[in-house]
């Protein structure tokens, strides 16, 4: 009896986490569409000033290089998020390995930092307005947090 109640609760929480992932991905995809639209419109190379060197130096990176790096990072983020979600959902069933969850969370954290850096760099370099940039960044950060809260207390 007790185990079936626990299972029902776990099912509820994992379903909620799946739905939240699906709904948040709509907002994220829309934002991503706007962001990438701006990137494609931008035809020039990206100039990154390095003021700490003597003499000051400016690094010129072709846009296509940045786009490829960004896509690789997006792939890493997607992969680590899915792995992390998989492990996090096991929390609801009390059948997870903390080792996997910690390692997965570290991978997710690294991928988020990489993604945010990459998006911020491109956003600033091609002149995307700050509010639009912040919207995407905040959405990326709060996404795993909301999912985690749902699994924990949903």
């Amino acid at each position: 009896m007790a185990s079936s109640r626990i299972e029902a609760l776990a099912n509820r929480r994992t379903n909620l986490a799946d739905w939240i992932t699906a709904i948040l991905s709509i907002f994220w995809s829309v934002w991503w569409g706007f962001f990438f639209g701006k990137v494609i419109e931008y035809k020039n190379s990206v100039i990154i000033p390095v003021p700490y060197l003597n003499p000051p130096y400016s690094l010129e990176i072709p846009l296509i290089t940045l786009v490829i790096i960004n896509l690789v990072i997006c792939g890493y983020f997607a992969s680590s998020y899915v792995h992390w979600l998989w492990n996090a959902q096991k929390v609801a069933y009390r059948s997870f390995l903390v080792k996997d969850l910690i390692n997965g969370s570290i991978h997710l954290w690294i991928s988020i930092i990489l993604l945010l850096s990459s998006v911020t760099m491109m956003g600033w370099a091609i002149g995307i307005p700050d509010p639009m940039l912040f919207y995407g960044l905040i959405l990326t950060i709060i996404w795993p947090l909301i999912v985690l809260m749902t699994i924990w207390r949903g």
Partner: protein
Amino acid sequence: MFSPNRKGVIRESPYIIIIRILILITITLSSALFVYGFIKRELSLLLLVFPLSLTSSVSLIIYQRIKGAYIKKNKQKLVEIIRNAASFLEKKPPQLTKYDITLSSKTGFVWEGVISSFLISTAHFLNHSRYLIISEDHGRNKTWSCEPESSILIDVASITRKMANALSEDDTVQTFLSIGELYALSLQNRRCLENKTIIKYSDESFIDDISKISTSLKQRNLFEADLFQERLIENLKQENPPKMTIYKWQALIAYWIWLRLSLLNSIKKGFYFAGWSDPYSILYRQIDAIIRYFKNEDWLEVSEIIYGSFDWRTWIPRILV
């Protein structure tokens, strides 16, 4: 004579510590650089995040590989120590060779461990027993009688076989019941020898508590099982551990080893809450220490190890769910 391997567990590679530090430093640095670069709007600082994050990601993958191999080695080491214990017990006393030990080899190292813990708790009992314990319903009720030792092996061997069968079918509850039956036999044998109850927390209550835990687990009443288990430990603590009978100690140690092995077995099912630690090396050290102290009759040390680690008791229901 059985002697735990004094060389200890496989040592953790120094590379693991270096890689762990590297991961922590690179993650902290890349996070700090991102925040600082974001606040100062410095693109060059954000660019530095890339190599740092890449380093931490690759280091983490290497760390997982090395750590996995290390845990695997310690698992093999643990299997070795349990096999040594089993072979020692097979040789002494001679009667033990009649047990159907071969059944254990079919069921993996955990089952071998459970059977060896079962043998640890019976070895002394069989060596010194003068009476046969006959119980109806294999010891779960209290109708006992003391008889000469002529057919003592029959009952114990049948429980062993029943336990081995339960183990091979992954029936944890029945395994636990069989071990409980053995406790009952051990304790009743002691009572037959001395013909008196020595201690405050009587053997009957001890058997009764273990039976209640078993029954609750069998009925999947996890809350109640947890309560009974808590009561068992509390009662044992109040009894002044060093003065407990040797049979109760054996029973408790067998129960403890069984519990630990069940936890290890649960790793396969993904229930283990070990984090980055290595459960095999912890168990190895604990079994090693318990057996040493047990041989020296240093009950205070034994009780500290057992009671100190019984906080995990609430995990039993989780394993069985």
